C-alpha cells in the first residue's frame, strides 16, 4: 500500500475514533452538569449499588404550601375529575397534630419506596416490584387491578385509576384499571434529574426536600442523615422506607 493511502486510512480512523469518543462522552458530560455526578447511561440497567432516598425536613414545610403536590400532579398528568374519593393522589400533605401540646406539623407523604415493600409481597402477578436501585414501581402491563397492594400499603400510598384516561404524559403512562403511586419521577431520575416535588420545593417552596443516593456517603442526603436525627414513618413495621423525615 502507498504511504498516502495508509495515512488517509489512519487519519480517517483517528477522526472516526475521536468522533465516537466525543459522541460517547457527550451525554455523560451533559448529564454530569445537570443532575447527579453518578448518573448512569440510559441504556444501562439500574444498579443495586444505588439506593434512591428522600429526606424531608418537616420544619421547613408550612401548612399552606403544596408546591410538591401541584408539581407532582403537573409532572405526571394527574388530572382530577372533581371526585376526590377516586381521584389519584400520589403525594399529599398530612396535618399531624399532637393532642397533648397542640403542636401541628404539615408532612408530605408519598410512596415510601420501602426496602421490604408489603405491596411487592402481596402482588399476585409481580406487577408491583422494586427496582434494583430501590424505586418501587407498578408494571401496569401485568397489573390486573386487584388492589391487593392498596390493602397492604401501610402508607396509603397507592391509587387506583377509576376511569378512562386520555392525554397522558408520554413519560408517565397511566390507565384505567391499574394501580399507581409515586415513582420518584423515575423518568427524571434515570436521566440524572430529580423528582418534580423536590425541584418545586427548591424553587417555589421551602427547600424541605433532599433527594439522593442513600448508599453514597458523599451525597447530600447521606451527609444529612448522618448528621441529624431522622426517622421513618411506621419504622416498627420493619419495611425500611427510603423516605426519611427530620423534625417529625
Amino acid at each position, binding site marked *: 500500500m502507498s504511504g498516502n493511502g495508509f495515512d488517509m486510512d489512519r487519519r480517517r480512523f483517528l477522526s472516526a475514533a475521536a468522533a465516537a469518543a466525543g459522541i460517547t462522552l457527550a*451525554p455523560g458530560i*451533559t448529564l454530569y452538569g*445537570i443532575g447527579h455526578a453518578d448518573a448512569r447511561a*440510559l*441504556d*444501562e*440497567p*439500574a444498579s443495586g449499588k444505588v439506593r434512591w432516598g428522600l429526606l424531608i425536613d418537616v420544619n421547613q414545610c408550612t401548612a399552606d404550601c403544596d408546591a410538591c403536590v401541584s408539581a407532582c400532579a403537573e*409532572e405526571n398528568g394527574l388530572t382530577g375529575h372533581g371526585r376526590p374519593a377516586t381521584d389519584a393522589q400520589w403525594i399529599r400533605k398530612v396535618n399531624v397534630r399532637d393532642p397533648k401540646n397542640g403542636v401541628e406539623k404539615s408532612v408530605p407523604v408519598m410512596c415510601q419506596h420501602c426496602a421490604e415493600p408489603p405491596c411487592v409481597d402481596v402482588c399476585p402477578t409481580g406487577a408491583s*416490584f422494586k*427496582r*434494583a*436501585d430501590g424505586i418501587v*414501581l407498578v*408494571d*401496569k*402491563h401485568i397489573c390486573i387491578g386487584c388492589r391487593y397492594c392498596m390493602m397492604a400499603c401501610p402508607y396509603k400510598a397507592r391509587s387506583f385509576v377509576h376511569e*378512562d*384516561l*386520555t*392525554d*397522558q*404524559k*408520554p*413519560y408517565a*403512562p*397511566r*390507565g*384505567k*384499571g*391499574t394501580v399507581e403511586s409515586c415513582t420518584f419521577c*423515575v*423518568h*427524571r431520575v*434515570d*436521566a*440524572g*434529574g430529580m423528582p*418534580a416535588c423536590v*425541584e418545586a420545593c427548591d424553587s417555589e417552596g421551602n427547600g424541605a426536600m433532599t433527594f439522593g443516593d442513600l448508599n453514597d456517603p458523599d451525597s447530600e442526603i447521606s451527609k444529612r442523615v448522618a448528621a441529624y436525627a431522622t426517622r421513618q414513618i411506621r419504622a416498627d413495621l420493619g419495611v425500611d422506607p427510603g423516605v426519611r423525615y427530620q423534625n417529625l
Partner: protein
Amino acid sequence: MRALVFILAMMFLPSLAAAQVAGGVPSPSITQGKGDKCVADTDYMRRYHMRELLHQRDETMHEGIRAKRFSLKECVACHATTDDGGKPVPINAPGQFCASCHKYAAVQIDCFQCHATKPEDGKQAQSPSPFPMTAAAEPETSQ
C-alpha cells in the same frame, strides 16, 4: 354429517359474498413516518414489532434501560400525524398508524389505554430529553 357441513357453509358463504361485494375490510393505510427510514426493515417490523416492543417494555420497566430503538414513545413521535390545523392527532384514532393495520388484522391492542397517543410536545419538561432524534443505526437482520 351432511347437515352439519350444510349449516356451516350457510354460515360462512354470506360473509364471503359480502366481502367480495364490499371489497372486504379496508386495507391499512400506512402513514409515512418522519425521517427517512424506520428503526428496522419494514418486513422485520411487520413481523416482529410486537415482540420487540414487549421485550423493550420489560427492559425499560424492570431494569430502567431506556434505549430508544424500540421505544413506544419514539414510535409515536415518528408515526403520529397532525391535522390540518397543525394539532397532533391521537395515534389510536381510526385510520391512524397503529389502528389501521390492527383493525385490518383484527388484533386489539390496549397500549394506548395507558400510553400517550400524541408525541411529547415541543415544550420540554424540566428534564432534558435524553433522546435526540438522530437517524437509527443499521438494524440487525438476525433474530
